[in-house]
């Protein structure tokens, strides 16, 4: 096999797929390295055509897995621990990581071709100009070297390709984009949305923005993608290709060019550095099955291995110039680990609608975007939070074996239509903290000899204050929304909230203008190594409140365009 390429892309997930597409379409000989196995689009691993009664063990993972300590992180998350898509998540017993005992970190991973693009939440939200300004404005973290305006055309570029179904809401806090037909709100969601609009000018309940096709373009159809069928089985693998993933969209687009080589089962151990040219030479990989090492060379290396995966590889890429990891002259590699925090869950009845029902499984929730960008009179914290919300179906009485009751009466009580019940989950921005850090464990290694990543990160006082305010705010909003029976549960101030629970881990190789305080410049290019780029979540200097994948994709497409021009001019 050829071992020299124009571009090596480490990781095949949501950003790796994008980098592959962009470089291949520009004519570069491109290698994508994936540490996990191959997963065929529409192959046998897709379980989206299984009815509940057809799922392996009716959806329940083999009990021996839990008894033997497998999937500890996923089991804590609960809803993902099912046989419909368990095979798309990593068992942390086989792939361990480390954290301080008093600061458990929940790292949800997907080691297979397509990575977590097969299981992502598909909420495709732009960041606002205020989000990119936040670090500079309040002094937390490293100021972003790019603005919303730098990214705006790339957001559009990405949205047109992936397909985002959304409404043009005209909000400053959540800029509109290139949208397909939005999903409709339920009776209850519309009711609350209308009432909130009457009361507030800065708070809005909108339909979510889903990376699920509702009116496919010619380009999307040509890739074999079709309209979403409202099954909401996205993370089982989408046979219709309506749900955006590397498998459904970017990798086929890259494959079409003839410039793509994909190698799976190859764990990138390190980025190799050439002391004389002061550039990355390529990478060393460990074969997952044989554990043999081999090297691939390239003119450019793009790190798209997920935030923490990328940090782990970079920290492990030691050389004479970079004894603490490649591109780490600043000592900032691994610092500013970010993520979202939820500490408030609320629910409430929506009056009326006794004669209203819903049909289908909409693949997206509703959303209340962050309305607290700037410190307000009633806030003792900085930044803000939004809410992921839903009342897509009217509630009905569920069978419960957890209460007394059997026989005809218990059975008759099942499936009776109940009130419309609205639910809201806070998503808060964790500030960039210098001491939220990922390092390599000094002694523990995995079975392939890679040092374990040790993640030492926690939420702090600012986030605790946010949680308090979010609880007050959502109660007020639900009242304004016309709801009754409002229940708000806030995580007690003394209770530990693990970082990583919302999956959106970011940071660790932050962008910044100053090479002394950041790892990457505004193009995702390492300050210290000009042909090394990081465009996954590791590059993020702050985490805002929006789901981040769309921003990763836009950053990746922009960086690939920039790197392509440098390659064409032989600058790198």
């Amino acid at each position, binding site marked *: 096999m050829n071992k020299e390429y124009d571009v090596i892309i480490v990781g095949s997930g949501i950003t790796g797929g994008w980098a592959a597409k962009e470089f291949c379409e520009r004519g570069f000989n491109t290698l994508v390295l994936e540490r996990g196995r191959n997963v065929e689009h529409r192959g046998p691993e897709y379980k989206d055509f299984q009815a509940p009664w057809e799922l392996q063990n009716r959806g329940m993972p*083999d009990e*021996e897995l839990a008894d033997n300590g497998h999937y500890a992180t996923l089991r804590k998350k609960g809803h993902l621990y099912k046989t419909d898509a368990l095979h798309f998540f990593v068992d942390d017993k086989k792939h361990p990581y480390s954290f301080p005992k008093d600061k458990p970190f929940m790292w949800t991973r997907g080691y297979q071709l397509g990575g977590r693009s097969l299981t992502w939440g598909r909420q495709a939200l732009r960041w606002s100009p205020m989000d990119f300004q936040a670090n500079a404005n309040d002094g937390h973290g490293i100021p972003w070297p790019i603005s919303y305006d730098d990214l705006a055309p790339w957001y559009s570029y990405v949205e047109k390709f992936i397909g985002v179904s959304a409404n043009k809401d005209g909000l400053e806090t959540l800029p509109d984009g290139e949208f397909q037909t939005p999903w*409709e709100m339920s009776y209850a969601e*519309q009711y609350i949305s209308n009432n909130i609009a009457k009361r507030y000018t800065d708070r809005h309940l909108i339909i979510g923005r889903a990376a699920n096709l509702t009116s496919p373009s010619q380009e999307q159809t040509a890739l074999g993608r079709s309209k979403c*069928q409202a*099954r909401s089985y996205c993370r089982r693998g989408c046979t219709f290709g309506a749900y955006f993933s590397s498998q459904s969209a970017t990798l086929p687009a890259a494959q079409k060019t003839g410039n793509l080589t994909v190698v799976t089962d190859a764990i990138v151990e390190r980025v190799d550095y050439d002391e004389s040219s002061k550039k990355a030479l390529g990478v060393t990989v460990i074969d997952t099955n044989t554990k043999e090492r081999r090297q691939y060379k390239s003119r450019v290396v793009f790190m798209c291995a997920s935030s923490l995966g990328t940090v782990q590889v970079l920290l492990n890429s030691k050389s004479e110039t970079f004894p603490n990891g490649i591109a780490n002259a600043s000592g900032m590699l691994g610092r500013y680990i970010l993520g979202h925090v939820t500490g408030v869950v609320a629910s409430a009845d929506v009056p009326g609608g006794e004669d209203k029902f*819903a049909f*289908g499984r909409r693949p997206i929730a509703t959303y209340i975007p962050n309305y607290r960008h700037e410190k307000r009179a009633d806030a003792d914290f900085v930044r803000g939070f939004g809410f992921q919300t839903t009342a897509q179906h009217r509630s009905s009485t569920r*069978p419960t074996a957890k209460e007394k009751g*059997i026989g005809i009466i218990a059975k008759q009580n099942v499936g009776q239509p109940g009130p419309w019940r609205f639910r809201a989950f806070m998503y808060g921005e964790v500030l960039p903290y210098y001491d939220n850090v990922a390092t390599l464990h000094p002694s523990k290694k995995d079975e392939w000899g890679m040092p374990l990543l040790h993640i030492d990160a926690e939420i702090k006082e600012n986030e605790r204050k946010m949680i308090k305010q979010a609880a007050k705010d959502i109660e007020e909003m639900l009242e304004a929304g016309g709801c009754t029976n409002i229940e708000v549960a806030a995580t007690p101030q003394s209770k530990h909230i693990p970082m990583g629970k919302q999956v959106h881990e970011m940071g660790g190789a932050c962008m910044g203008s100053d090479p002394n305080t950041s790892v990457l410049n505004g193009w995702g290019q390492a300050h210290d190594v000009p042909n090394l780029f990081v465009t996954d979540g590791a590059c993020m200097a702050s985490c805002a409140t929006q789901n981040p994948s769309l921003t990763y994709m836009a950053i990746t497409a922009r960086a690939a365009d920039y790197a392509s021009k440098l390659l064409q001019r032989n600058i790198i």
Partner: protein
Amino acid sequence: MEINRRIFLGAMLYVVSASVLPSELKKVLKLNVFKSDAAFFNADQMTLVYDLANIMIPTTNTPGASDSHTAQVLDELMVSWASSSTQRQFTNFLAQFQSKAKGANNSNYFSLTKKEREAFVEYVDGNAFEKNRNEFSTAYKRIKALIFHIHYSSEEANPNFFLVPGGYKGNLTESELSAIHKRKYL
């Protein structure tokens, strides 16, 4: 491990062919007797699980546990899903259940009339959710949870399930929803 369809169908046949009791007695007892061992449970255990499931979720104007083959699916799950500790817990529970039934009724559970068996299961159910927890009530609640899960995730219990709904509508009248269910597409 996938549910083994061959064994599953085999277990169904046992129910259909069960005829070890005189027909007059069967009318009173209304008990489906398994005469052969299933994949995990032996014939007696299978008879008991089947009866428990049907008492918990009887057939009415909608399908019950017997229609959804809940006992047979549970038997298969004991092989494909249950850990050895769950297997022990459930077999111990079934033995204890028989023993308690005999103690309470002065008669073998299988010899009780349908009404007597229902009354006994209701008694066990009521006790299980009292504050005093013990091994027996814990095991009962687990079996009940599984029986409910199996039945309510079955095809029979979900006649309006659409694998491919084709779209989402969030503001339908009952008659509009019924029409969709009837025509089987959006």
